């Protein structure tokens, strides 16, 4: 069976360029968004907003949403940086981006219309996003172990 020829290095990088740009766009935009989100949470402390401060679960969920959103944005930037060395992981880039969006979205929306004891049903986005992240990282790990 004829083997697929490896593309030359510049050609490979050119092929990865759209994926790298997608991760860079997502990572920088999300970082900006969650930085603004963090400032908003601080503002809620500043004005002592009771609908945030007095709702233990909402506070926890929104802090989790902010933290996960920012960290996953950084993960996208890191992914863009290592992608030239792990080109096989590029196929799972969509899962990483969707996962990075769904996990914080679930936390943030789960804190809206929630009861005291449980998040709203929007929290289902979080495990779905987590599953996508798992898939992306599994793909990247497999690519790293393969020669």
């Amino acid at each position: 069976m004829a083997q697929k020829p490896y593309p030359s290095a510049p050609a490979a990088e050119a092929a990865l360029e759209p994926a790298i740009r997608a991760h860079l766009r997502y990572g920088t935009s999300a970082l900006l968004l969650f930085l603004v989100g963090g400032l908003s949470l601080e503002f809620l402390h500043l004005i002592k907003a009771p609908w945030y401060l007095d709702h233990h679960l909402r506070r926890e969920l929104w802090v989790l949403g902010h933290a996960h959103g920012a960290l996953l944005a950084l993960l996208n930037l890191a992914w863009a940086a290592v992608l030239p060395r792990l080109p096989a992981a590029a196929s799972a880039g969509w899962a990483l981006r969707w996962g990075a969006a769904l996990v914080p979205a679930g936390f943030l929306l789960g804190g809206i219309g929630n009861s005291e004891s449980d998040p709203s049903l929007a929290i289902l986005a979080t495990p779905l996003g987590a599953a996508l992240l798992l898939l992306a990282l599994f793909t990247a790990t497999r690519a790293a172990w393969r020669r």
Partner: protein
Amino acid sequence: MSRRLATILSLALPGLLALVLAGAWGWSAKQGLEPPEARDEFAYAGSTSCKSCHADHHASWSRTYHRTMTQEASAKSVQGAFDGQVVRYWGQPVRPTQKDGRFLFEYLDPRDLSVLGSVPVARTVGSHRYQQYLAEAPGGRYQRLPLIWHNGEQRWIHYNGAFLYDDNQRYDQHAATWNPNCIYCHNTGPEPRITNAEELFQRLKRGERFNYLSEAHWDSQVAELGIACEACHGPGAQHAAANRNPVRRYWLHLSGRADPSIVNPRRLTPERAAQVCGQCHGQRLPARPDLVDRWLSRGPTYRAGDDLQAHVRLVTRDTPVPAGDPDTFRLRFWSDGTPRLSAYELQGLMQSSCYTRGGASCIGCHSAHDGDPAGMISAENREGAACEGCHQGIAQTLPAHRQHAATGANTDCVDCHMPKLAYGVMEIHRSHHIEKPAPAVNASGQRPDACTGCHGDRSAGWAETALRQWRGEPTEPSSPTALPENLRQLFAGDPVQRAVAARLAGAEDSALGPVARRAQLPLLFAAMEDRYPAVRRFAWLSARQTATVLGDTRLLQTLAGFDFIADAPLRAEALIRIRQQFRPVAIADLQGGLLRDDGGVEAELIASLRAQADGRAINIGE
């Protein structure tokens, strides 16, 4: 296996698994929604379990004095000054002190102050107005100690000064055993667990006479010290177990259905909701004699949500007294049945048409989770927002309804319809019998009234005439020389009347102007000679408030030297200094003849009024 298939499977398999799990949970949730076949009345989980799901409600409850009603003695819970300073009342010197991290009362020999005995504090009761202390005693008893710490005044007070008794009391007059008394209302899931009931019963049958409180042995247990979540929501272990199932929880959230495994007072009928509070804020006896054994062993049978009256008999003016003074209960109510002690709020509410016809309940005004922890009531509700829910017509014409606008007085609904007339925990509280003012009827019934309590320099006739004029009814002019009703009750009333009158005479929100307040000071000094410590204290508080209003700092300083429970000679000396400090001035309003025109008191009239006073002590069931 192709990459695409692997991707599809890696998403589909967890999805399928999630669907199966959701189905299983859904089925089990439906089973869990049915009420448990037999409620386990002892299945308490504790407030820590509640916290993991109800953190906000746990936090709002944690602020309350309910939580700290009973606590193990510790540096965190003890509020009193255990600083080694000797406190001497009723001839007994006591030194509250600390040793090795423990809080002790050292009982001293009055002659040389040597230590006769040392009693360690085991638990504290109360944390709001005052704090009581319990010591462990033989037989598993917890004994209430005579010295209490008053938070407002930051001082030690002997219990004899907190009850409506005269000066002639034993040092241990109000000794109480916690196990068959305080345990019921100051804890959650109380179980006194008397262990030798049968033996005591046999001794009684043999005709033996003994002190039941000192002979009984106890193995008392509570689900939680203090008044915690499950006192108002019912035992929660079954609820906590059922709601580990997330599908059940989301089914309840989304459907808006009540969870049958727990009680939410806001979902109960107004009557049942009021009974949740009334299990303690409504003095009661076991509904039937056969329940007495149960109360002494595993505690009361009522649980939140039940029909309280199926479990207990609420104490009213007409309730027969099982043993002791047959007037014990009668004396706890005004002649019209309105409670005059605190912890009878349910009985007061049940007499109100707001309850009988309007469906009012405690939680219409109060909330265990909102508002000021002191009264568990929001600022809006204090000012009448709760009343406006039903009385919208009045709310729209409030200035006309209030009738006090011309004087600039800002009267709230509660000022006229829930006057302060109930004694408890060394304060005068609002009546929970919501009613219309009726000064003439109330004066003839020997009870305080909203009008004459506030207008402390006016007679009942004056107040009745004013009310009739407002209503457009025919009136007769009242006698200008009639005794002001509050002052009449201050000297001629029974101990509760005198206590209420003394407190109202100088109340911060009194309608008395500075001239009238100043004129009444000599009468308050006279009331500071009352033979009931509680009355003396209220008269002293009113004099202090009056001096504050008048800005008389020298009088305030002199008043600070008066101790309402000091020995009589010391009190007399302090009063001499106070009277020397105060210079009466000529006055026009002689307060119905109680004052001379030079501002001094008419001692003969006061003496004749005192001769009319009912001197009976009032037993406070707390």
